[in-house]
């Protein structure tokens, strides 16, 4: 019980801190959210490429996998594993294979929901 509580604390700490860094970048540089996503994806991919992000995931679990940095790290890690097991073929496709579920679900469900809902004017 104590260990799982500690784990949740770590998740909150790491996940929250990554988002806080994002907020700091938004405030200081006025980058748009789209650019923030790209920047964090890059950071994650670099950390994943050097095999550093793996340690953060081990330490903080979902606190590291849920932020978009985890998506970037997954892409990089997938490419590395692919290169090791499948050679050139794996190196080219490994990244997308590792993250394909997230992308596929996002696209499929967005397509579906677009049929049932309309955008609404905002109150504020």
């Amino acid at each position, binding site marked *: 019980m104590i260990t*799982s509580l500690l784990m*949740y604390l770590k*998740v909150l700490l*790491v*996940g*929250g801190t*990554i*988002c*806080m860094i*994002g907020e700091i*970048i*938004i*405030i200081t540089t006025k980058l748009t*959210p*789209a650019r*923030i*996503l790209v920047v964090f*994806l*890059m950071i994650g*991919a670099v950390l994943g*490429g050097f095999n550093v992000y793996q340690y953060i*995931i081990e330490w903080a679990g*979902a*606190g590291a*996998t*849920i*932020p*978009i*940095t*985890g998506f*970037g790290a997954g*892409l*990089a890690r997938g*490419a*590395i594993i*692919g*290169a*090791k097991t499948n050679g050139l073929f*794996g*190196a*080219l496709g*490994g*990244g*997308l294979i590792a993250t394909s*579920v*997230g992308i596929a*679900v*996002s696209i499929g*469900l*967005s*397509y579906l*929901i*677009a*049929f*049932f*809902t309309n*955008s*609404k004017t*905002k109150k*504020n």
Partner: protein
Amino acid sequence: MNKKLRNENYIRYVERKSPKSSWFKSLFHAFLVGGAICVFGQMVSDILKSYFPLMDLLTIGAWASVSIIVITIILTGLGVFDRIARFGGAGTVVPISGFANSIASCAIEFKKEGLVFGLGAKMFYIAGPVIANGVLFSLIVGLISLIF
């Protein structure tokens, strides 16, 4: 007066004059919302682990991400997500929810221009750069690790 100098002075003046968002408040909101989304992901992982003890960690992590993607897209469709985002700022953008919301919001918004050039093409208006850069990076990483 020199135009360039005038503009530089003016931009500096505007910078001083523009109202600043409260640092403490926005950082705290981002931490809280972002952290909460991650904690939710961890809860999904833990539940999955207890039901399927044999499932490997990568798959569990992927399912946790998918659960957040699904909830985000449904909330986007209901028109609720942007209210949470207005409160959380980067706390909703940086987690995978930001990615899912960018696809869903574009799909909903641009479906009026048809299924091909509206929904199909403009769905990636915001998420496209993320996927493009991500794939490019994974290619580079893959090719480098092939050499070494």
